[in-house]
């Protein structure tokens, strides 16, 4: 069934050119049907868990393309399967006046399958394959606007990603050469932890880290992400806050915890260099976000910073740290998609820059309220979502002690402060300041298709703010290697 969940949206998306939809309505129905069927197939397996390992085909005898869901994979697949239908609904409303919708939705749907493929990959080879596919599939989505700016952003994205994939490939070779298998196992493959090849392996890990670090937007490999925010908002929201960037993070979690062993890496340069970069990126991303006046670019820089929270947790090399990282992976996905969807609603009405938000609450009461809620959550005001994951990360780092973990906590705190500055202050200004133009009440309110995903996601956010145990218990279990 995993194979079905991965291949069905890919096939259904690829068949788009056959249909040549004349009407928006029929296209919408088709997209929603495909996405909902896929989620309906995937979610039971994600929630209940399945031990089955399904092989698609064998490249060589030792290198199968295979799918299997373990705890960490279930978390990522769960995020994707829940958020995809919602943002598809949003995209249908948002994109209705754009051109070339068949191509857009074709790639948008294919990408769903590809992302599930990454989440369900049972070995590094499979993950790498779908990772490459993802780059190619999302490229047209970034370039969809067709303007010179978006083409340039797309090319930049392509160059960065291909470069990263090349590095990751070298890492893959290391794994195949020294390990013999690329199959994921919690705690790493035992072969790596002994023998004279340790040093080589650590270098291999670093290469791999920088390779996957491109999509995870680790400094100095982050530059493509803010530029890519020129893409249509449904793409930025789902792909550049959830699917693509989290694939990078997910791949790094996979190589750190499931391929190369934490036991091999902890306490060596192979831990310190990535960890130091992440700590730096946390502060750097926030600072850049504060500087940026374009709302979507600001949110993109905020993503840069937040992705490194997750990596920071995973790279602490303790299961407690991984737990914090995974929590932030889920929470950030929910919070950031909320903010991006709001930004999209704003953008449609011509509000592109932060200063345009002044006095906006009169014109669109729902979106501004949700944005304010999302801002508070991102900043980490308890009991809202963001606090829980930051707490888990900081707690893990305190238990770790040491210079870099402590520096990481300081970075978290600085980042929380800056987040308040770049998100809460604009939110406040939507309520109090008077903008260039005075809005009439409800002047710019949007349709239900755009607003209902917003409301659903913010309800989910509130629910998990007050009952986090439902999620955190499972994450604790997954971070300890459970299936």
């Amino acid at each position, binding site marked *: 069934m995993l194979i079905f969940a991965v291949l069905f949206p890919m096939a259904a998306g690829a068949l788009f050119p056959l249909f040549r939809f004349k009407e928006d309505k029929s296209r919408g129905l088709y997209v929603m049907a495909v996405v909902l069927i896929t989620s309906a197939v995937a979610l039971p397996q994600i929630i209940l868990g399945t031990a089955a390992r399904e092989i698609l085909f064998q490249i060589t005898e030792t290198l199968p393309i295979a799918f299997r869901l373990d705890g960490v994979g279930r978390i990522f697949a769960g995020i994707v399967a829940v958020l995809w239908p919602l943002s598809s609904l949003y995209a249908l409303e948002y994109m209705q006046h754009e051109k070339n919708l068949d191509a857009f939705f074709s790639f948008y749907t294919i990408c769903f399958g590809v992302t599930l493929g990454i989440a369900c990959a049972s070995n590094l080879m499979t993950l790498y394959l779908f990772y490459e596919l993802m780059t190619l599939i999302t490229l047209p989505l970034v370039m969809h606007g067709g303007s010179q700016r978006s083409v340039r952003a797309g090319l930049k994205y392509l160059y960065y990603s291909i470069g990263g994939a090349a590095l990751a490939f070298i890492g893959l070779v290391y794994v195949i050469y020294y390990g013999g298998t690329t199959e994921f196992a919690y705690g790493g493959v035992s072969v790596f932890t002994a023998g004279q090849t340790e040093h080589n392996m650590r270098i291999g890990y670093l290469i791999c880290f920088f390779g996957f670090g491109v999509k995870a937007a680790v400094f100095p490999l982050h530059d493509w992400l803010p530029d890519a925010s020129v893409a249509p908002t449904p793409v930025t929201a789902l792909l550049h806050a959830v699917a693509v960037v989290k694939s990078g993070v997910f791949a790094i979690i996979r190589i750190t915890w499931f391929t190369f062993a934490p036991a091999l890496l902890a306490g060596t340069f192979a831990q310190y260099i990535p960890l130091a970069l992440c700590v730096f990126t946390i502060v750097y991303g926030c600072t850049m976000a504060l500087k940026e006046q374009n709302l979507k670019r600001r949110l993109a820089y905020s993503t840069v910073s937040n992705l490194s929270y997750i990596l920071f947790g995973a790279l602490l090399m303790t299961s407690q740290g991984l737990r914090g990282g995974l929590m932030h992976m889920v929470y950030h996905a929910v919070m950031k998609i909320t903010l991006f969807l709001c930004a999209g609603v704003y953008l449609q009405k011509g509000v592109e820059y932060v200063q345009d938000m002044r006095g906006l609450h009169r014109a669109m009461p729902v979106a501004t309220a949700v944005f304010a809620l999302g801002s*508070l959550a991102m*900043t*980490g*005001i*308890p*009991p809202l979502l963001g*606090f*829980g994951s930051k*707490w*888990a990360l*900081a*707690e893990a*780092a*305190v*238990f*770790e*002690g040491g210079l870099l973990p*402590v520096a990481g*906590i*300081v970075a*978290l*705190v*600085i980042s*929380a*402060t800056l987040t*308040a*500055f770049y998100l*809460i*202050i604009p939110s*406040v200004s939507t309520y*109090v*300041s*008077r903008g260039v133009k005075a809005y009439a009440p409800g002047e710019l309110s949007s349709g239900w298709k755009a607003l209902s995903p917003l409301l659903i996601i913010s309800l989910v956010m509130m629910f998990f703010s*007050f009952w*986090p*145990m439902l999620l*955190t218990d499972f994450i604790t279990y997954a971070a300890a290697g459970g299936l």
Partner: protein
Amino acid sequence: MNGFLMVVALVLPVLAGLMVGFVPQIGLHRKTRSIFVGAALALQCLIVVLIALGGEKTVVILHLSENLPIALRSDTLGVIFSLIMTAMWTASAFFAFSYMTHEKNEKTYYAFFMMTLGVLMALCFAATLVTMYLFFEAVTLLSLELVLHERTKESIAASIKYLIYSVAGATMGLLGIFFLVPNTTSSYFVLGGSLNVEALTVAPSALLGVLFLTIVGFSTKAGMFPMHGWLPTAHPVAPSPASAVLSGVITKAGVICVIRVIYYSVGVEFLRGTWVQMALLTLATVTVFMGSMMALNESLLKKRLAFSSVSQVSYILCGLFLFDRTALTGALLHVIFHALIKDGLFLFAGAVIFKTGYTYVDQLKGLGRKMPVVFLCFTILSLGLIGIPPTGGFISKWYIAEGAIAGLSHFPVPVFTWLVPAILLISALLTAGYLLPVSITGFFSQPDEEASQAKLNEVCEPCRLMTVPLIILTLAVVFLGVFPNLMIDIFDSLAALLV
């Protein structure tokens, strides 16, 4: 029963605020709204008194994770702070019923005014560090409306400044909370602290640095140098009854957080004699002196009072950082007296603005003869703040000074032993220098121009809604100054447990 009452003390004002904000029948009609808010506050006073009488109980509202409860506890410190805060809130509200008639958008004002009280109560009763942090942030966000109420460019800029400083301070506090929770033996506050000194997960020197930042962070709300910049900007731009509670009450939110961190989580022994104590004492004394000097230099009345708050709240902090039983008693006494006095002083400024529109000290010439009750109250409150017996301020400052001499007698750097008491005394003189001229101008000067003379003739005392709260505050300062023993007994026995 008390657990339930604490939740009510949080929920009732918040609910009342929401009703004022969203139910047009209550919010839009002035008389109904005043009666509604007054009744809610009366009920709130009753509830807080009942909690005070009911003894110590703990109630858990929510679990963020197994070891992160959001919980309230009616301990002595919480009760002390909640009583004074509710009382000041009520006084300010009754004053506002008359004062706010000349402001716009009264509905929003009362809505946020009430909600802020609710979260302040929860902050007082917070039983864990995370609970405290949560409600600390909530106080900032809700009281923001009070600062930007007038929606002028100036007030919006001031509110942003307030927000930036407060959030930065709160996250500095959060840094410490991150370190303290895994390193304390109890997730709840414990008298005298529960730091697990034998098994720290980080180096003690690193923890000291973090604690320094934490305490400075929470002191932001109390206006301690170098995080004081927002206070003189934000307090004066709010409507006067709001300035009164911002300066008199919300600064104490910072104070209670500092007490909770030092005396209820870390314990004084870990900090005693370290560079952290020295640095904090230095910052607090510098602020005491600096605030007074700035106040002396300022001719805008409300801003002068705000600078005075900077100085006076740092008296309290100074008392806290001495880690001495007498000084702690003095600090708690000063919490009460400063709240009463500064509330009163701002209400005075409000009464003057309401009647004349005058905001500068030198505009007040001759006004005292037209508004004798108001000016008399101001004079008595000023004497209290300077510390002249028999008013209350004398007792609190006496205790702090005595505690400074006792507490610093074994201090590693001997210069502190005489410098700290000396600065406290000098600052008292400066207080006289910036407050008494207001009374003198009011009672003894004549306006220069004929226009202002003509305007002066039309001025009379404000209505009873304004004068009565002011008189009550003044009487309270005198009464508690003459009969302080009950308070001193309670505070001293609490301080004995904490040090």
